């Protein structure tokens, strides 16, 4: 789900650029941005433009233009997605990048949070926060969801992390915070303060506080944003209280205001492999960058070689690891000036943005071992085709059986010994289907498998020769018809002397009565019955000449208990005390030394419309012992 969207936004000419009567060299059309190289005297031909394509190109050059991209539009395009991701439980990240004065802070924050007289000019961060709380208030009315929102605000200056929301502990305490990674909790800043917020105004207050601290922390005036990165993080937890067990999602939304692009080398800030600029680093201190770039180029050419490049990670990359390599929606907004005087910086920004998708250094998945698999499969295909060919040569009528013989020969060898081994995992899925009906549960007890059923039920014990398994028929409220195979009955039995409607069992609040049909042979505990007969726990019922069933009835009190507490999870044993369970809950225990691992359950009936019955068979039923 990692995806990066890239947007570029151009601002209007500023005062200084107008004074210099700068030419506009940026043009946008739909998703593309074109930059014109400023013409040097007598060098008109060189003025060819470069065009870049992005997910969005925002023309905010002229307010009166019909294509003018307002703060509102940017929020609708980019901010909505961030909020959506947050509520879906994803992480999200918005990164603003660009030269100082190109409109980064305006885009992220707006003109100034403190004096946001013009509400239309509010930036992305306030709008996202507002949207978040609007949605929270909306949702907490309707759903059983609880929300918990915390924010933190930090600054990275010269690779040191400062908490912008914590009062200075002591004047000497400028050591910076360290950034670490936790296997369960992801990257985090040690000792970074988190602030619980309940409303937008609280968030706004914290933003103002943080911005103020950011300003005073730097030596110069108004240039705080030039040299430091700021990360505003919203940690947003949703808890569904009605879910069992409690279900929660946590999403982190990072809103990142990067230092002015002219002050930082983008390759060092976001860990990309770019900066094509032809600039030469003067100082030998930067030799490492050049060598890293070379190694990177080398690795880029040969896709199979994986190398390690030291000192690549900056604190920022580290902190954004979960956004860049995790399940996150990342948005990059590159802001640019329209003026020719900023040509080089703007071009660099555009290049950077056009490669931003690669910056997300998403580790790729490499597959190594397919070669062998394909070879094997190739030979299998050949073999099967060969068999098919031989088969069709024999005659069209019997292709399958012919294939059979050949294949049988091939497979018998391995199959002979397999006799009773089976695949547990697929069985488990089928078992689940039955168990999900929530009337039966299966658990292990010693070397036995215990089937618990909270409804009155019958267990087949008799000489039903066609079946090799154990059958459990549970009786839902109402009538259950038993008979031999035709269309009306709910329980189908096999055996001599059975009628198509042999008898009816009626379950009223746990009391089960047997109604024999005319001419049907029914025995309860060895005595023939012709009149309705209430069944008691442990009754043996013989129907016809062969089919024998054993009646089991969990007690009424037990039932009440279970319904009150809600039906138990299918995975937890309903009763742990075994003596209790023998009396109160019936169970079918299959004890089988040899085949205990080979229990196989097959759902034959799962039709909800019917009063309810399930037949559960075990494949190795010859040595069953019903408890």
């Amino acid at each position: 789900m990692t995806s990066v969207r890239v947007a570029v936004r151009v601002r209007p000419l500023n005062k200084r650029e107008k004074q210099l009567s700068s030419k506009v060299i940026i043009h946008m059309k739909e998703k593309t941005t074109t930059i014109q190289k400023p013409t040097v005297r007598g060098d008109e031909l060189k003025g060819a433009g470069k065009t870049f394509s992005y997910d969005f190109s925002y023309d905010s050059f002229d307010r009166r233009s019909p294509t003018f991209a307002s703060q509102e539009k940017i929020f609708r395009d980019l901010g909505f997605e961030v909020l959506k991701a947050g509520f879906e439980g994803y992480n999200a990240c918005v990164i603003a990048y660009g030269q100082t004065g190109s409109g980064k802070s305006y885009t992220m924050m707006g003109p100034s949070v403190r004096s946001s007289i013009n509400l239309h000019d509010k930036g992305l961060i306030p709008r996202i926060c507002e949207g978040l709380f609007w949605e929270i208030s909306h949702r907490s009315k309707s759903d059983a969801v609880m929300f918990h929102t915390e924010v933190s605000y930090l600054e990275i200056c010269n690779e040191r992390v400062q908490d912008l929301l914590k009062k200075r502990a002591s004047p000497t305490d400028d050591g910076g915070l360290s950034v670490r990674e936790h296997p369960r909790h992801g990257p985090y800043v040690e000792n970074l303060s988190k602030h619980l917020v309940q409303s937008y105004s609280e968030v706004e207050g914290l933003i103002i506080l943080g911005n103020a601290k950011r300003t005073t922390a730097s030596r110069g005036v108004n240039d705080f944003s030039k040299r430091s990165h700021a990360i505003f993080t919203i940690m947003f937890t949703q808890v569904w209280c009605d879910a069992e067990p409690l279900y929660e999602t946590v999403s982190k939304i990072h809103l990142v205001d990067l230092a002015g692009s002219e002050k930082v080398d983008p390759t060092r800030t976001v860990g990309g492999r770019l900066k094509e600029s032809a600039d030469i680093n003067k100082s030998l201190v930067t030799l490492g960058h050049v060598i890293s770039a070379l190694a990177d180029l080398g690795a880029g050419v040969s896709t199979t070689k994986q190398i390690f490049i030291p000192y690549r990670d900056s604190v920022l990359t580290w902190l954004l690891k979960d956004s860049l390599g995790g399940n996150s929606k990342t948005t990059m907004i590159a802001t640019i000036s329209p003026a020719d005087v900023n040509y080089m910086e703007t071009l660099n920004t555009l290049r950077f943005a056009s490669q931003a998708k690669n910056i997300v250094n998403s580790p790729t998945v490499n597959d190594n071992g397919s070669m062998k698999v394909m070879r094997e499969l190739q030979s299998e295909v050949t073999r099967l085709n060969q068999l098919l060919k031989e088969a069709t040569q024999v005659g069209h009528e019997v292709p399958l059986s012919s294939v059979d013989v050949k294949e049988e020969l091939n497979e018998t060898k391995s199959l002979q010994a397999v006799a009773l081994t089976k695949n547990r995992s697929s069985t488990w899925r089928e078992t689940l289907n039955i168990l999900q009906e929530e009337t039966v549960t299966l658990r292990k007890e010693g070397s036995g498998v215990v089937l618990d059923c909270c409804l009155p039920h019958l267990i087949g014990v008799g000489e039903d020769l066609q079946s090799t398994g154990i059958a459990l028929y549970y009786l839902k409220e109402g009538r259950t018809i038993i008979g031999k195979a035709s269309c009306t009955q709910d329980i189908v039995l096999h055996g001599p002397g059975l009628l198509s409607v042999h008898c009816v069992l009626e379950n009223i609040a746990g009391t089960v009565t047997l109604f024999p049909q005319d001419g049907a042979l029914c025995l309860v505990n060895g005595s023939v019955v012709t009149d309705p007969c209430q069944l008691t726990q442990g009754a043996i019922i013989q129907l016809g000449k062969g089919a024998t069933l054993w009646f089991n009835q969990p007690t009424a009190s037990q039932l009440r208990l279970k319904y009150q507490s809600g039906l138990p999870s299918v995975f937890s044993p309903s009763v742990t005390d075994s003596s209790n369970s023998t009396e109160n809950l019936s169970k079918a225990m299959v004890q089988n030394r040899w085949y205990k691992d080979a229990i196989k359950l097959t759902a034959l009936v799962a039709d909800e419309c019917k009063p309810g019955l399930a037949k559960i068979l075990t494949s190795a039923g010859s040595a069953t012992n019903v408890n």
Partner: protein
Amino acid sequence: MASFNSNEWRAICDKFTNAQNLTEIESRNDPENDPFRSKYKARELLREIYCSLKNFEAGEGEEEGGGESGDQRPTEQPVDGQREDLFGQGFSGDSPAGLRAAKLGAVEYYLGVNHVDTEELPAGQEHLMNCMKLLERCRVSSPNVSLFIHVRNQLGILWAGRDETETAQGFLETAESIYQRYMKEDGSPPTDMTEYFAAEESLLTHQERIKRFELAYTHTMYYLAQVYKNLGQTERAATYCHTTLQRQLQLNQFTPMEWALNAATLSQYYITKGRYMEGRHCLSAATVISDLAGEVPSEAAAQENEAESERREHLRQKRAEIARCWIKYCLNLLQDAKKQLEDNIGELDTDRQEELKRARRREEEEEEKGRKSALLFGSEDTFDSIASIEEKVMCLFPLDFTEARSVFLVGQNHVTQAKDYFQMDGYVTDHIEILQDHSALFRSLAFFEEDLERRCKMHKRRVDMLEPICNDLNAQYYLMIRRQLMFELAETYNEMMDLKLALANRQADTQSLDNHTIKKFNHLCSASAKYFQMFLDSLCSPEGKFPERLEEEVLRPALVARFRVARLHSRLISTSPTVQLDNLNKSLENYKYVVQYCEANPEAGATVETELELSKEMAGLLPLKINRLKARMASNN
């Protein structure tokens, strides 16, 4: 200089010293809102010096009688390379005219640098070109050669910054050849430009002169490295980086840890080019030089003192990073060797092995020759230690298990070292990458292992190190890493499954598989399928829906995973026809997915060509098999 009285001259020298001081020291403390204050002051002083020199020259020019007439040259810009012989023509460097030109040139040079530093590039260029013009009249010789090189370095930077890399290249390459020829033909310690304006008593020692001159040339090398990089000539760029490093070491102008890391990084470049001899040399040097940074302070010392604590952290981290570069060396060497030796199903090709072993002798000779011609690092005292580290690991492809094992063990040692710093708690991503490398080392070693039992155990080691982590990591934050791990685990289980089967077949050729083996086989097969499926599940939306369109970076892995799942399901062994049927249906479903996806998205087909072809075949054949099974089931009932 006779016309300057000593006071006048001293004043000029003082101004110069002052200007230097302003430029290099004062300017660091300039306020943010007036960042170039000191540099502007320095500029004024330089201008004054220039005027004094110029006035004096005018006066003297009359005395000498029309010295200026020689100036009436065509005004076109001198571009390097046009003049044929910088060494043969013009004033001698130590003639009065030559010295005068050099002094004036030096002031132009400093003015040029000053303007460039204060972001006035055109003016800076003009001054630098004036310097070039003045020097044009002179022959390269000991008093001016340093200026010849410095001015070209500056022009190189200037033009590179304008995207005119070829122009920059011209200036820098000329600087390079001037240096080389000077060292060949003269070689005496050249005058430094600062000495033009220094009193007799404060002239530099020969040693200091050499140091400064060589440093200027080191910069030329470094700038050329960048120019070649920008021109896309990476190999040349690497050579120049290598030379830069080598010179830093020889001239003792380096900080050990920084140098070591740069060398280690350069090794990674060489690895990508398959140049293991150079890679090993860089790494060995990195190890030796990093030791010069000193002992890692003990934990106790670190607890008492914050500076020590930071130093401890720094040294441990950098050494661990160098270790990680070594791991990659060993790993890539093993993997490249494997590529050389494997047949078309990834098994050891013994014919090829013999062939390569025969070719080995020749290679060894070449290695010896290569060593002699290569750019070697080291001063007298480090040379031997570097060589002794090199001896511990081979740089030729390992061709059999013994050799492979020796490379593996070196890699594994570095794994231990790297993990010691990059621990799971605190460095999750790094720690896991190291584990992945460790696993890959095992994987490569297993290729060389002939004993299948032991080979299987190596893969088991991989599972043991990766499986717990894969299940432990936060699925949201470490999605990508987990996907990698899932895929690797799936493949490893698959590998083990194949090995188990091969072993069983080998041991009991005529008999059928025993129960235990079948159980084991099925377990491995299901485990493999489970991890492929887990990978596929990780692509699903929060609601658990598999995406209709696969994103580019997961397209191939996802289709391959489907294909592999299909294959695995059809390999599960069962006697129960129902289970068999179920498995075959699952298999068919996955083959069909691959086929259908590629039909709907034709561009996807190209990424999984063979898999697609086979999936098509199987999607056609499997229904037959399924029908046959059904028929058999019906007849048995």
